[in-house]
């Protein structure tokens, strides 16, 4: 039974994929719609099943098959055959063979494109195979051509819808080889219901392309009558909504892509027409893939790294991700303990210039802002002098210089600018250089492995250093003084605010926070931990929920309730919820109560986070908001402000977009393990049972 459900889902996914969606419901409607033309419907499903059965026969991995990713091309090929030929034993056989062939080509191309270009295959296999089939059938006289006979259409619609609308609907229908107004209407409704952004793009794409054709051809009728205009729809949707993050810039590019595709379309039509073959999706495929490749090459900021089930979800994920995780991937911890002051930051006033501009200097200051006691004439007066310097990264020590003397105050060593220093190679592919150690204080040697927080040495005043301070920079190569690279600091507190990954401005007082093991231990979930919560709504019991810790194939962990998966993880000093798959109100509650938990115990530390609209806003409002957010990204995330009230107690406020009423939240960690209480507004979850899985 379960296996059957999986097959049905996979097959339905193949249908939805054609509109770039991942939804069995959409797939089911599309599947049923294909039976407006029964021949089409039968041929389509047969082709998919043939591909699926072949894949099964090859014992292909289950996860590959669940998506419909390798079978939607087979579906298109099947449809193209059904569109042309009447169903007969021969046709069925023909369809099955074609389905398998498409599958083989799909896997081949997916691998080549994915590995060498990091590009999707779209419907290239379909365009190739169908063209091949259409060419080959001119030899196969045994096949019964149906395309010359009338098919089912709703005449009322066909006759009464104005031609400029009919053109759009027919084109939309033509994507499924159903070039009639009824099918088009169904698809349009389906698109609108699933994704406003895709629907909008389909309109924009179609009419832009058609208008351009009109300019070139001079006839509105001719412009709207060409069924191959569905290529415009596909191009606009793929470029503007699927492979690029929905944004104004992406929409402009989608328009350009549509214009480009008109030329390719006309050219293809001229060429293929000589052989009696339609253009299929060739223009869409060639333009989309070319553009994606080029955009990726030049570093266009809105190329989607993560593609979710709908453009709305992709956008939601992108906006939240962008706001939640600013900073860089070259993340350093602050290289000291306690509170220090930023003396000079990137592109600083004194020495951080040119190639050496990505560097930070730190000193210690007192309440009066001074860096020393007494008159500051002796090194010993300086707060920073002989304070421990800790490793900001984990990696291998490649260079150590430790013999240079500490300059007396008022002198600098111009010969050895860097003074006593270490260079550490970080496995992520960069070098960290730290300078001005006290003479002979370095405890590490070349070749040593260091972890974040390993003791390196003591802060001193060697090299070009007018007063004791720590200098840190990230370099491309190991040679001291080589060009510096941008980086950012993780897990620090500035002005009572916790920063997960950011750059502190000059003069700000910053303090690194290392995970408090008491807090971290309570959130160190491992596989098969199961937590059962009692749920309360306004203090009335409202059922209970159990969740179990599971691991995904990529090694990330999630809470599974059966209805949803809440992904979480720990990075530096912070526990994060990353995303929620599926719809589960309880997991949603957990996410919004505290999207991140700094693993520190100090009280009155604030932090800011952002919640995806999926978590923070109701379904209807979300669909409207995300559509507008695609034009104006600033409205696309809900802010969360949290405060650590005491050890293991966190209070927060969610400010949902477009709502004046903030929601109060509270999270209390258990004394021993896990989260004891989660409160969002009037609703509350209380931990009643913890099991630790099998030992």
């Amino acid at each position, binding site marked *: 039974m379960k296996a059957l459900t999986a097959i049905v889902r996979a097959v339905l996914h193949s249908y939805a994929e054609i509109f770039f969606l991942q939804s069995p419901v959409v797939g089911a409607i599309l599947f049923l719609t294909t039976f407006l033309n029964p021949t089409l419907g039968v041929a389509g499903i047969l082709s998919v099943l043939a591909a699926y059965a072949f894949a099964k026969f090859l014992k292909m991995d289950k996860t590959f098959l669940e998506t419909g990713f390798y079978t939607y091309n087979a579906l298109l090929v099947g449809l193209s055959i059904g569109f042309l030929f009447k169903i007969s034993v021969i046709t069925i056989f023909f369809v099955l063979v074609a389905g398998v062939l498409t599958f083989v080509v799909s896997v081949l191309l997916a691998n080549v494109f994915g590995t060498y270009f990091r590009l999707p295959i779209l419907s290239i296999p379909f365009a190739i195979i169908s063209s091949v089939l259409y060419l080959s059938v001119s030899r196969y006289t045994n096949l019964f051509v149906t395309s010359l006979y009338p098919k089912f259409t709703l005449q009322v619609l066909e006759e009464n819808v104005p031609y400029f609308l009919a053109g759009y609907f027919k084109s939309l229908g033509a994507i499924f080889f159903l070039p009639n107004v009824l099918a088009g209407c169904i698809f349009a409704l389906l698109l609108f219901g699933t994704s406003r952004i895709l629907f909008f793009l389909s309109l924009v794409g179609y009419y832009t392309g058609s208008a351009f054709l009109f300019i070139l051809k001079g006839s509105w009728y001719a412009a709207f009558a060409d069924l191959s205009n569905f290529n415009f729809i596909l191009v606009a949707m793929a470029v503007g909504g699927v492979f690029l993050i929905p944004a104004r810039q992406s929409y402009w590019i989608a328009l350009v892509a549509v214009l480009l595709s008109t030329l390719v379309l006309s050219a293809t039509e001229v060429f293929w027409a000589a052989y009696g073959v339609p253009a299929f999706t060739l223009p869409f495929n060639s333009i989309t893939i070319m553009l994606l490749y080029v955009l990726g090459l030049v570093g266009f900021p809105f190329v989607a790294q993560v593609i979710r089930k709908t453009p709305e979800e992709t956008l939601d994920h992108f906006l939240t991700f962008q706001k939640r995780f600013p900073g860089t991937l070259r993340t350093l911890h602050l290289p000291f303990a306690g509170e220090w002051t930023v003396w000079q930051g990137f592109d600083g006033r004194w020495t951080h210039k040119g190639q050496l501009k990505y560097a930070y200097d730190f000193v210690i200051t007192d*309440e009066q802002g001074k860096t020393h006691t007494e008159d500051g004439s002796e090194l010993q007066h300086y707060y920073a002098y002989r304070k421990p310097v800790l*490793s900001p990264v984990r990696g291998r020590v490649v260079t150590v210089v430790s013999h240079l003397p500490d300059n007396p105050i008022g002198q600098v060593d111009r010969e050895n600018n860097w003074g006593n220093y270490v260079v550490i190679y970080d496995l992520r592919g960069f070098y960290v250089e730290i300078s001005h150690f006290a003479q002979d204080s370095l405890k590490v040697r070349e070749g040593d492995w260091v972890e974040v*927080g390993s003791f390196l040495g003591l802060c001193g005043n060697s090299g070009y250093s007018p007063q004791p301070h720590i200098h840190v920079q990230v370099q491309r190569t190991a040679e001291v003084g080589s060009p510096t690279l941008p980086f950012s600091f993780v897990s620090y507190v500035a002005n009572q605010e916790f920063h997960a990954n950011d750059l502190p401005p000059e003069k700000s007082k910053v303090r690194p926070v*290392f995970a*408090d093991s*008491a807090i971290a*231990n309570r959130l160190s979930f491992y596989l098969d931990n199961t937590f059962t919560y009692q749920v309360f709504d306004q203090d009335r019991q409202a059922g209970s929920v159990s969740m179990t810790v599971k691991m995904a194939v990529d090694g990330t962990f999630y809470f599974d309730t059966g209805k949803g998966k809440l992904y979480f993880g720990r990075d530096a000093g912070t526990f994060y919820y990353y995303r929620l798959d599926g719809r589960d109100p309880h997991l949603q509650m957990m996410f919004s109560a505290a999207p991140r938990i700094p693993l520190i115990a100090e009280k009155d530390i604030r932090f800011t986070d952002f919640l995806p609209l999926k978590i923070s806003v109701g379904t209807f409002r979300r669909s409207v908001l995300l559509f507008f957010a695609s034009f104006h990204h600033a409205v696309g995330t809900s802010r969360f402000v949290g405060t650590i009230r005491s050890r293991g107690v966190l209070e927060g406020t969610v400010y949902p977009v477009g709502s004046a009423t903030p929601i109060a939240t509270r999270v209390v960690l258990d004394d*021993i393990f896990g989260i004891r209480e989660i409160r969002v507004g009037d609703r509350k979850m209380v931990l009643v049972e913890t099991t630790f899985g099998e030992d």
Partner: protein
Amino acid sequence: MKKPYEKPVITKVETGLMNKFGNAPYYARKVRTAIDGVSIDALVQQFGSPLFVLSERQLRENYRKLYRAFAARYPNVQFGWSYKTNYLQAVCAVLHQEGAFAEVVSLMEYEKARRLGIPGEKIIFNGPYKPVEILEQAAAEGALINIDHFDEIADLEAVAKKLGKQIRVGIRVNMDTGIYPQWSRFGFNLETGQVMDAVKRIQAGGHLVLTGLHCHIGTFIMEPDAYAQETAKLVQLKYSIEEHFGYQIEFLDIGGGLPSRNRLKGTYLPPEILLPSVEEYAEKITQALYDHLKPGDFPTLVLENGRAIVDEAGYLITTVVASKRLPDGRKAYIADAGVNLLFTAFWYKFTVEMDRDLPGVNESCVIYGPLCMNIDVLDEGTSLPPLERGTRLIFSPVGAYNQTQWMQFIEYRPSVVMVMEDGTVEVIREQEDLSDIERRERLPEKLQLNSIAAE
């Protein structure tokens, strides 16, 4: 004005040069006319004599200096304010504002911390005697209980069963850190393996979760290396417990005992010369941590400081009420405050300052208190010029232990005031009167004396 008659004495002439102990007798006479800008005269006029004066500024400065010395060297540092050193509410409040937890050692101190508004989770509960009722309250409120002996394990397990929850606890450890005397009466001994027995016992019970280690090596420790040894041993113990029992040791509490800038009797050099700086203690302790901890593992370092923070913030103003000449020729003064108020006079030699500059050469003298007891001596031998009656003497540092160990013996205890950072003066404990002393007394009916008089 005619000078009052004084019996002639022969005194050794001091040349005014520094002697080998770092003192310059003539110039050593110290005059203090104000505390944090508030004049001694004004203080006495308003609040009477004797008078305890605490400086908020000094209190905060000492705390920050000490905290910074550790926090600039190690990422997770937490101070516990040792209540027994001075549990006047105002003092505790200042230090709690600075971020200290409450370190309490008895039922009374626990209740005091709670009444001040400190939540259980910010209370470190030490002490060899914790009555079951307060153990139960502390466990329910999430206080951090450091277990002192096996019987307490049993008590706490009973509490855990009653509360129906596991309790996070620490255990107290005593060890040899190379100093004498070795404090061995608190907690479980490390070298004899008693600690591991205790951990085994805790694990066998299953009701307690061991999360921390505590050790207090002694008081007024003048050797930073003793702390380094203590720290190193605690870290090794932490890993050995984690490895064998699977507990996660989240904090290492190295106790208190850091000295204040006070002068122990029997030492000749002044404290500025004799005592290592707090920086030296911090450097030794944190270096021991870095040397022995696994990289990136930063259990919370807890220190339970008392005297190092509050001692120097406290002054006692007394008034010379009489003078006399002792048979051995020394001058003796009687002050209005004695060991009833300065309990620490038994082991410290305080700095004595006068409120005015007086003429005359210094002479050896003894300062007695007002008690009818031979032991009531504030200073057995100091060097002061002839003091007029009514001269105020200011004793310092006296912030530690005196306001918790003072005794109510034949005298009322005086006011305690705090000079605030903004220059105002607040009474933080009023002078006692008879009602304070008799409030708890009950005179049985048949002993009522007025009824006798009436007959």
